[in-house]
C-alpha cells in the first residue's frame, strides 16, 4: 500500500516537472551558434556529405574516442565477471536443439548482415550510420550465427586481436592528425577527395572502419562470452 502511494507520488511530481518544462520549451526555429558554424563550414572543412559524421568524427572526435573506451571497459568488465564465475573449458554442445529452418536461414542471412554492417561503416561519411551502427550490425550477424549453431566457438584471440589493433590504429590516426595537420583526429591528413564520393572526407572513412571493427569486436566479445558461459552450465 505504502509502496503504491510512493509510486503515485513520484509519478505526480514527475508529471508536474515535465508539464512545467513543456511550458518553458520553445521549439527552436534557428540553429544555435555552434550548430550554425558546423552546418555552414562543415562541408567545406571536413568534406563529409553526412554532417552528423563530420561532427562525431572530426569536431567531436575526442568524445568518440571516449565512447569507444567506455565500451571497451564494459566489454572487459563483463568478460572478467563471466570468466571468474566459471572455468573456461567450453564443452562442445552435442545435439544442438535449433531448428532446421533457423539454421538454413541463418546460413543465408548472416553474410548479408555482415555485408550491410560493413557497408554502413565504410559509407559513414556519405549515408546515415557509421562506426557504431555498423559495428552493432556486424555483432548482431554474429549473434544470429551463434543462435543457429550454439556449439560453434568464436575465437577470442581473433576478437581481441581485431579489437586491439583497430583501437591502436584509431589513436595513431588521431596522433598523426596532431603531427601532420592542425589537431588531434584532424581528418585532413589524407586528401579531401571529391565531395560525395567514397574516397572523400579525408581520414573519416579510415577512422570509421577502425571504429566499426572495434565496436563490432567488443559487442561480439560480450555476446560470445555470455553464450559460452551459458553453454558450460548445462
Amino acid at each position, binding site marked *: 500500500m505504502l509502496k503504491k502511494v510512493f509510486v503515485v507520488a513520484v509519478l505526480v511530481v514527475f508529471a508536474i516537472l515535465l508539464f512545467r518544462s513543456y511550458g518553458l520549451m520553445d521549439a527552436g526555429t534557428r540553429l544555435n551558434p555552434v550548430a550554425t558554424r558546423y552546418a555552414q563550414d562543415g562541408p567545406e572543412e571536413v568534406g563529409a556529405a*553526412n554532417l*552528423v*559524421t563530420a561532427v562525431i568524427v572530426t569536431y567531436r572526435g575526442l568524445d568518440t574516442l571516449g565512447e569507444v573506451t567506455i565500451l571497451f571497459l564494459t566489454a572487459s568488465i563483463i568478460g572478467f565477471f563471466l570468466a571468474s564465475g566459471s572455468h573456461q573449458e567450453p564443452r562442445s554442445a552435442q545435439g544442438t536443439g535449433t531448428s532446421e529452418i533457423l539454421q538454413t536461414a541463418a546460413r543465408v542471412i548472416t553474410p548479408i548482415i555482415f555485408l550491410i554492417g560493413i557497408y*554502413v561503416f565504410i559509407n559513414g561519411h556519405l549515408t*546515415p*550510420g*557509421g562506426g*557504431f*551502427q555498423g559495428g*552493432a*550490425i556486424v*555483432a*548482431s550477424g554474429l*549473434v544470429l550465427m551463434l*543462435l543457429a549453431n550454439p556449439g560453434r566457438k568464436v575465437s577470442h584471440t581473433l576478437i581481441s586481436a581485431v579489437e586491439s589493433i583497430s583501437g591502436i590504429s584509431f589513436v595513431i590516426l588521431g596522433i598523426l592528425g596532431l603531427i601532420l595537420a592542425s589537431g588531434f583526429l584532424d581528418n585532413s591528413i589524407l586528401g579531401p577527395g571529391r565531395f560525395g564520393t567514397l574516397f572523400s572526407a579525408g581520414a573519416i572513412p579510415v577512422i570509421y572502419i577502425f571504429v566499426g571493427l572495434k565496436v563490432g569486436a567488443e*559487442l561480439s566479445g*560480450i*555476446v560470445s562470452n*555470455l*553464450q559460452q*558461459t*551459458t553453454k558450460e*552450465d*548445462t
Partner: protein
Amino acid sequence: MIPLKIIAILLGLAILVMAFVAVENKKLVVSIIAAGAVSLFASVLYLVLAAPDVAMTEAAIGSGLSTIIFFYVLNKIKKERKDHA
C-alpha cells in the same frame, strides 16, 4: 498522407503501452520482448523526427543486441535455479 505529428503521437502511445506491458507483465519473456518493442518504436520515432543515425543505433543496439543479451542472461538464471532446486 497522414501528417507526421499524428504518426509521432501514435508512436509515443505505442511506446507507452509497450513500456506498461514490460513493467506489469508477470512473464519475464514477454517483458523482454515488450522492452525490445519499446526500442523498436522509439527507433521509428527517431526516423520520423529526421534522425536516421540515432534510429539505426537504437534499432541495432536497443532492440537487437540488448534483447538478445537479456535472453542469454534469463536462460542462465533459469538454469542456475534448476540446478539449485
